[in-house]
């Protein structure tokens, strides 16, 4: 039993790891294709049919570029920075329930790597940890522009973590649990989705996710057009590639977290009314879940090619003076509603 369990989890980890990397890889192509669509131009279309091989070419180019470690840089920490960033980006998906259970030859396989009862806090912790990769990388470069960029990135990340945590608290007051699998299981069907109970909370959480992934309009950590690049100014070759790549992985994980917390995860309307067997419900659920994730990724890109970037003081103003008071208001409203519902209905 024990070995079967471990092998099962290992296979699941490898599958999720591969899917994450492939989706992140093709997000780079999708981003450029969507940019092309929005700006009325074709986008990359030379490598393979419709540009399908473009991510491979980009990756190959990154590997063959010359690798430069600046003379005054601290070598160990300079390498640790991008490593830590990519690790923290990848471990976030461990607690996400990708589907219900599949029964294969009498074995019940749960499509979730770790069903821990503090799943939501775990994701929050991973987000908190992702600051280190950026800060270490920026400091180890021994360049004042990198250091300033790292501090800009870290202060943005810390500020929006608070709003994110506060908007999650309101959600947790509704669900009453911290476990991802229970939160998703509570939202079965369509009307039970948390987004209908917590519309304001979802909006706040989504804005904070944009900031945590440093996507436009919050991409000040790496705004190459008006400030010097940011924490990765001194990076070249695949180390720069890892920083860039982790942004797309962050986007994928953030989309998965948003779909499972607020949009029902693998649940879809009329899932138990169609007379399907458990395996079919699970398979369709996984497909539906990925459709939701792709929807969110498209939304991320849509916003990127529609909105301009904030100034840094506007960003701080929004984070501290708008989002945090609004999320506290959301907590109070949720508490009042819950009490009124408990006493009078």
């Amino acid at each position, binding site marked *: 039993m024990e070995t079967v369990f471990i092998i099962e989890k290992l296979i699941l980890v490898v599958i999720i790891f591969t899917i994450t990397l492939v989706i992140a890889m093709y997000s780079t192509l999708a981003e450029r294709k969507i940019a092309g669509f929005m700006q009325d131009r074709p986008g990359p279309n030379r490598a393979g049919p419709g540009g399908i091989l473009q991510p491979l070419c980009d990756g190959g180019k990154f590997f063959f570029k010359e690798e430069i470690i600046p003379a005054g840089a601290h070598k160990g920490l300079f390498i640790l920075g991008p490593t830590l960033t990519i690790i923290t980006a990848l471990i976030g998906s461990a607690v996400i329930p990708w589907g219900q259970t599949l029964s294969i030859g009498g074995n019940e396989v749960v499509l979730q790597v770790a069903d821990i009862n*503090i799943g939501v*806090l775990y994701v*929050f*912790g991973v987000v908190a*940890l992702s600051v*280190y990769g950026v800060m*270490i990388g920026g*400091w180890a470069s021994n360049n004042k522009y990198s250091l300033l960029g790292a501090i800009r990135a870290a202060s943005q990340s*810390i500020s929006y*973590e608070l709003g994110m945590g506060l908007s999650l608290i309101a959600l947790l007051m509704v669900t009453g649990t911290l476990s991802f699998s229970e939160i998703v299981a509570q939202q079965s069907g369509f009307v039970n989705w948390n987004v209908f109970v917590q519309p304001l909370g979802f909006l706040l959480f989504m804005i904070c996710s944009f900031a945590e992934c440093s996507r436009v309009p919050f991409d000040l950590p790496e705004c190459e057009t008006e400030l010097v690049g940011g924490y990765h100014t001194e990076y070249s070759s695949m180390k720069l590639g890892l920083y860039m790549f982790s942004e797309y992985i962050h986007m994928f994980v953030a989309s998965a977290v948003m779909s499972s917390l607020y949009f029902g995860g693998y649940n879809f309307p009329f899932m138990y009314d169609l007379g399907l067997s458990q395996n079919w419900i699970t398979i369709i659920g996984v497909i539906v879940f990925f459709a939701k994730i792709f929807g969110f990724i498209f939304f991320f890109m849509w916003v990127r090619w529609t909105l301009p970037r904030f100034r840094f003081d506007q960003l701080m103003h929004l984070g501290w003076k708008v989002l945090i008071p609004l999320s506290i208001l959301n907590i109070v409203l949720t508490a009042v509603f819950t009490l009124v519902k408990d006493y009078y209905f």
Partner: protein
Amino acid sequence: MSLFYFVAFLSIIFALMTIFTKNPVHSVLYLVVTFFTFTIHYIMLNAQFLAIVNFIVYMGAIMVLFLFVLMLLNLNEDTEPMKSVLVKVMGVVAGMCLLVVLFGAFRVLDVSDALVGPQPDIGLVKNLGKVLFNEFLLPFEITSILLLTAMVGAVVLAKNDTKKA
């Protein structure tokens, strides 16, 4: 049990590295790793909530601020004034006194099973919340007021400075 000894060994090694490294930024990074090993200790004690809060608050928030300040200060041996011998001796004496007190406190304790306490599930979120909000409600609320006071104080101090400048 061997896992406990291994993690305890790591904690002590990284704590010593924190003290003995010359570069303050490296020192903070070793301290972060030390806190991470504490998180593993909490998980082994089945105190999941404490583990993740230690992870988020100490590793994710407090140490980031430490790192922030140290990276901007760019401390090194040449520019920093060295402390006088008297202060160093006083520090050693004070540290030794603390060691004696701790040693005396530990001597009278009974040895308990290191891995499983009397109530193994007390550290889960549900149980911890019930204990905090039933038995220890007053101390809990007073602590939160204390934190709020500190926060207001910090804001007041920061405001005063900008007016003068």
